């Protein structure tokens, strides 16, 4: 059990993958290296599938169009027409979190298991929420909006700016870490066929749902900030 706990402790921190030998060595963490891999895969995937686009879609173009329009409709339900400029970013975040949660199946450690990655995503979300609020309402109305239902709740509203991204970050990190720990324990108990069935739930189902929830909550908070009374 000692090795298991020391291994788990080492998994909690972020490991350095290699060092770029310029400017006196820049250490590159593993999650960054795997993110580069995911970026290369997604860019190649897009480049291959947008060749020879036809007006009447056939073949793989059908699936891609279905996926993109599904995502756009889902976001349009929450954000409405004015939020159209934010759809590309939210779609990219869904793709990234989905890919990085699923990459655990192939044996790499998912980049979202690193607390820094989820914290970065949460900080991006908070910036997006506040900026969308300011853009939609104008600076003065946005500041007055803090006292909106009742002036008594203003400190809670201000606190919420920091608490919401914290909960987003911890939810994603906790889910990925939890499924990782459970899979490690299962592999110790039954290393043969059984992990596959459990991995179906923990890695695939849980990972995709967490991507969906992250983007849905960001969009929901943005819509709440953009609401003009």
């Amino acid at each position, binding site marked *: 059990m000692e090795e298991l*706990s020391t291994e*788990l*402790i080492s998994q*909690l921190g972020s490991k350095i993958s290699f060092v770029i030998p310029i400017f006196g060595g820049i250490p590159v963490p593993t999650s960054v290296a795997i993110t580069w891999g995911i970026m290369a895969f997604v860019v190649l995937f897009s480049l291959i599938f947008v060749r020879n686009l036809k007006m009447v879609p056939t073949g793989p173009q059908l699936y891609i169009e279905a996926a993109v329009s599904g995502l756009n409709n889902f976001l349009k339900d929450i954000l409405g027409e004015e939020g159209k400029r934010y759809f590309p970013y939210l779609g990219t975040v869904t793709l990234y979190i989905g890919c990085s949660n699923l990459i655990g199946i192939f044996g790499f450690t998912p980049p979202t298991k690193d607390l820094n990655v989820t914290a970065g995503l949460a900080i991006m979300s908070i910036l997006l929420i506040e900026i969308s609020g300011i853009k939609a309402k104008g600076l003065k109305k946005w500041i007055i909006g803090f006292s909106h239902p009742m002036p008594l709740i203003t400190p809670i509203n201000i606190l919420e700016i920091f608490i919401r991204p914290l*909960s987003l970050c*911890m*939810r994603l*990190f*906790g*889910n990925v*870490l*939890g499924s990782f*720990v459970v899979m490690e324990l299962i592999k110790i108990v039954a290393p043969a066929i059984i992990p596959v069935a459990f991995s179906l739930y923990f890695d695939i189902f849980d990972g995709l*749902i*967490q991507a*969906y*929830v992250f983007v*849905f*909550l960001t969009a929901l908070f943005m819509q709440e900030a953009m609401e003009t009374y």
Partner: protein
Amino acid sequence: MGTIIAIGAGIAVLTGIGAGIGIGLATKGAVEAIARQPEAKGDINKALLLGCALAEATAIYGFVIAVLIILFLK
């Protein structure tokens, strides 16, 4: 010291009770709503999935705290 760490971790995971009860109640509401109006199945499904993921988050917070207690207290 080891027993106190174990008791602390055990108490931290008790947040699972809240998640279990909350998700159970949400599913009860969803099933009743589907029984009353089967055409709205798609919307009810989405709302249920979202509610379950959010309620599960509190249980996950407890789990993360328990893991941190076990690993970082000596």
